[in-house]
Each structure stands twice: as structure tokens, then as C-alpha cells.
């Protein structure tokens, strides 16, 4: 996913990657990643919980809007 994100950014498209394993993202370095505290297989948290899914997506969208960030922007999700 990080390789796809990097290619999109090279072409002028802003990206944000949800990430489940910080140790990998720190090595690969996607442009923008939101680290979430969930198990693999559950990237947006609980199934059938639109509220939680919205909270994670909103946090990711805010990374897209944050002009103070610098690449690679690897940010922890502070919700639950």
C-alpha cells in the first residue's frame, strides 16, 4: 500500500494510508500513515460499527488537511 501511495503522491495526488504495524511503516515510510490500535483484519475497528469507522476515517482525513505535517508523516490514532 505504501508503494502505491508513494506513486500517487509523485503524480500529485495526496494520500493517507491506514496502518496496522508501525514497525513496517517506519521502515517503508509511506507519505502519510495513521497507525490504528486494531488487530490485523480489522483496519477500521469493529465490524458493523459505523461510528467507530467514521472516527478512524475522520482522523485519516485530517492528516490530509494538515499542512504542518512533513513527510513521512507517521501519526498515531488517538481515538478508540
Amino acid at each position: 500500500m505504501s508503494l502505491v501511495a508513494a506513486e500517487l503522491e509523485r503524480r500529485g495526488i495526496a494520500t493517507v494510508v491506514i496502518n496496522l504495524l508501525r514497525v513496517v511503516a517506519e521502515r517503508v515510510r509511506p507519505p502519510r500513515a495513521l497507525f490504528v490500535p486494531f488487530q490485523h483484519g480489522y483496519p477500521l475497528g469493529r465490524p458493523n460499527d459505523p461510528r467507530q469507522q467514521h472516527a478512524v476515517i475522520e482522523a485519516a482525513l485530517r492528516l490530509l488537511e494538515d499542512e504542518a505535517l512533513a513527510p513521512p508523516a507517521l501519526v498515531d490514532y488517538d481515538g478508540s
Partner: protein
Amino acid sequence: MGEMSDFPLSTRLFLKAYRWRRIDPVPWTLLSKPLAECRLGLISSAGFVGPGDAPFDRSVRGGDPSFRVIPGDIDVSQLREHHRSESFDHQGLAADPNLGFPIDRLRELVNHGRIGSLNVRHLSFMGSITAPGRFQRDVVPEAARLFEGDGVDAVLLVPV
């Protein structure tokens, strides 16, 4: 957050020894306009396949590098998950495909004016590509060109 300890020993050893591609320099694009005016694309690596599309090939050594185009008007209940990995629990995605392909959530955000619009198509990969040579050389540029040609401004990428 997922921890290395979530995985079986064989996967942990692989993750530790694997030579991850390091992105350097890290490219960077800022939004050129408010998100409420942007066209958003969605990319999943959960191995989702839409109706009539061939499933991912689990037998390809190094991982199937191909992708599927998911129509923008897809009903998520029609998506089937074909990810080959046994390192994660597949039950969540089966119960709620929006967990890995949150198109209904994004539609709600468009309806609320948070996002301008969604692209006419989205992309689905199957992760666990351990030999990313062809993937990086051919497939990634092809996928990026699609979104570039569609006039996509921003992309949300959801792994599994």
C-alpha cells in the same frame, strides 16, 4: 495497533528478515483545495473482488500483483474477500466489508459535504506481495495512472 506478537512465529521471522523497500525520498503532495471540493479514491488491499471479476490467484509465488477495479456504485454486500493470508482473522471482513472497503462511510461523508465526491471507480489489491518487482515496476504505475486520469485529488488506502 497490530503487534508482531499477533503473528505466528513463521510470520514474525519473515517480517523481521524481510528486506522492506524503503521509500526515499518520500514524495509529498498537499491538497490543492478544500476536501469538500476534492474527488476521493479508495484503495483496499484486502483482496476484494466484485461480481463477475476473477478472484486473485493465491498460487502465485511472491503474491498476485494484479488489481481489480471496483465500480463506484458497488453494493458492498456483493464484494467477496479473497486474501490468501492466514495471518489474520477474516471474520470481520466477512461480517462487514465496510471494515476494509468503507465505501458506505465515504458516501455518507459526501452526503454530509465533508468530501466533494467519490471517484467513479476504486481499486482492490491483495496484500502479502512478498516479491514486489513486477508490482512496483508495472502494476503500481498503471493503477496510479488510472486515478490520475480520473482527476482524483486524494486517496484513502486501507490495508488489512
